[in-house]
């Protein structure tokens, strides 16, 4: 057997590697995505006060701290047993939309555009955000400004761009001032235009990517997202909804607090990333054989692709036009993971529209933004949609509010099985024998990037992220190695 390792995978948030094992006939035998970081946040949160958890868990990630702030604060709401003031929910929604804008902009413009615009086969030395700036300076400039706008929304409401303290159990820390409201509204038009123009450009390019659409994780799976009774795109509240590969509802109106009845978490020996699965389709721990014993029977995807499959409309006119075209091209339910990029752009557009509606409502300036209470429940679950997908926090506390147990299910974990299937599919499509050219390796990495995985990158990076590919024969000897520094 020949084993090929891509270590670390580049242009993702965090550290991971990919192993491809080829049989003696040179054909793909297996493909695995390994997460090599060990963070143990759940363990070291124990013993901390529940009020501290939003800012503590926000340290889980420097890219989407707002998502953890929201899920953690919602868990705190449940433990306090409070209904937060309506204005607080509006502000939380605005800040989550800002988070979706900035995170999706990072994914599309900084991480994936080099492949999409410069080409999978272009010079790897220039296939990065800087190469993009040289080739498409106006697009790069607009992408940076779009992300900057999303961050300014976070800073305005939550207090800081990263690890912001303004979202708290019970609501938010401060009301929105008229000045802040006007500043944010002033930036919306440009953000919306950038989103719409980029979306139009992406749709125009689609013809180039027929093979990638067909082979980048194009498989049937379930899709999970938050839903509401109106059927509109939901990112903050609501119930859990699973749909299948044809868009048929499999389970609906699930209280997020009951997630354990529907979602199992399997730990696999070769990755620190857990593998959540849809429980009703898998018997036991997913290690058995047969249709209900196989973990793969319970694969579901979360994030932009899944959210657009779960909703009926975006609830925003421009984004709904875009959704119609998207569904027409995807044939109804989108099952190609390549469409994560497209779904992400539609969500940015929707976020600008929905944020505009929220900021146009004078109620957003009301000064009652926080409910206060002590410990009224010993257990709580908080759930919201992070940019990468549905995020769950679950805490158990003692009578003083000190945590005795913590569980977090992050979006990237829920896509773990889907990412493995994606790299297997890409490798099967492009690899033919042990001589693997760099553009093929790049496509395998890009399959992972389509999910925009975030592997907890809150630690300050001390080094660079080269691509290290090692080819090892069945005896373990290195037969070839290529390093991209």
């Amino acid at each position, binding site marked *: 057997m020949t084993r090929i390792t891509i270590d670390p995978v*580049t*242009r993702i*948030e965090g550290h991971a590697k990919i192993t491809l094992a080829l049989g003696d006939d040179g054909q793909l035998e297996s493909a695995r995505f390994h997460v090599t970081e060990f963070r143990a946040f759940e363990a070291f949160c124990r013993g901390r006060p529940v009020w501290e958890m939003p800012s503590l868990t926000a*340290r889980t990630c*420097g*890219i989407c701290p707002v998502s953890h702030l929201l899920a953690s604060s919602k868990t705190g709401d449940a433990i306090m047993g409070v209904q937060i003031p309506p204005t607080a929910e509006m502000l939380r929604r605005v800040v989550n939309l800002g988070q979706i804008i900035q995170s999706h902009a*990072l994914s599309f413009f*900084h*991480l994936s555009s080099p492949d999409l615009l410069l080409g999978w086969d272009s010079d*790897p*030395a*220039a*296939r*990065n*955000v*800087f*190469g993009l*700036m*040289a080739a498409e*300076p106006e697009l*790069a*400039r607009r992408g*940076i*400004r779009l*992300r*900057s706008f999303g*961050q300014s929304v976070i800073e305005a409401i939550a207090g800081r*761009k*990263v*690890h912001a303290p303004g979202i708290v159990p019970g609501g938010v820390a401060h009301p929105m001032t008229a000045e802040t409201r006007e500043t944010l509204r002033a930036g919306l038009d440009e953000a919306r235009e950038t989103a719409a123009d980029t979306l139009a450009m992406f749709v125009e390019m689609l013809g180039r990517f027929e093979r990638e659409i067909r082979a980048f994780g194009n498989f049937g799976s379930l899709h999970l997202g938050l839903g509401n009774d109106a059927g509109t795109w939901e990112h903050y509240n609501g119930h859990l909804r699973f749909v299948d590969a044809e868009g048929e509802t499999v389970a609906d109106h699930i209280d997020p607090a009951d997630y354990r009845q529907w979602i199992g978490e399997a730990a696999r020996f070769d990755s620190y990333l857990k593998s959540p699965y849809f429980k009703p389709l898998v018997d036991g721990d997913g290690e058995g054989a047969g249709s209900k014993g196989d973990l793969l029977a319970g694969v579901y995807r979360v994030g932009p692709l899944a959210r657009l499959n779960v909703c009926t409309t975006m609830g925003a006119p421009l984004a709904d036009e875009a959704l119609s075209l998207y569904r027409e091209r995807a044939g109804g339910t989108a099952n190609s993971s390549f469409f994560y990029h497209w779904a992400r752009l539609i969500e940015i557009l929707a976020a600008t529209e929905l944020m505009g509606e929220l900021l146009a409502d004078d109620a957003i300036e009301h000064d009652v933004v926080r409910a206060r209470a002590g410990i009224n429940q010993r257990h709580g679950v908080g759930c919201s949609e992070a940019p990468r997908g549905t995020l769950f926090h679950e805490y158990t506390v003692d009578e003083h509010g000190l945590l005795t147990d913590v569980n977090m299910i992050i979006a990237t974990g829920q896509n773990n099985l889907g990412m493995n299937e994606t790299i297997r599919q890409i490798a099967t499509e492009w690899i033919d024998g042990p001589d693997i050219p760099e553009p093929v390796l790049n496509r395998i990495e890009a399959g992972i990037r389509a999910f925009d995985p975030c592997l907890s*990158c*809150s*630690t*300050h*990076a*001390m*080094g*660079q*992220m*080269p691509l290290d590919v090692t080819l090892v024969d069945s005896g373990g000897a290195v037969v070839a190695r290529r390093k*991209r*520094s």
Partner: protein
Amino acid sequence: MQAFLVIGYGNELRGDDGAGRVVADRIEAMALEGVTVRSVTQLVPELALDLVATDRVLFVDADVTVSEPVLRRLDGCHSDDTDPGALTHHVTPEVLVGLTVALEAQAPDVVELLSLPAASLELGSPLSPATVRAVDRGVALIVEHISAARQGETTKR
């Protein structure tokens, strides 16, 4: 009056790595005229938008290779300073300036880096005693430096 931008960066949860941010926060608290301050976990491409709007930029970072605060000018930053491996995780001042040039065809006239000695980068918030002293010296050094630059401007007129 020349516009100054001070960017302190590092991770406050990794001991002395956060020294640059502590310096930046203290400079910001002084509200010096014509001085804009950014205190960030790491350098990111969006900071190019701030660099375009300033005449001089001073980066402040922790450095395990120095034993005293060292202020030096970074000459020759240009659009070629775009390390192909540089991504969201690892953007250096040179790369950020290069990126600014690539985007806007302009960059600050003066680019400087203040390196502060760092002894411990382990998990934990407090700065080591040596870095606390270095932070005090770093703040004083920046204030003097800005003052000297201002006096130079006056003399030129």
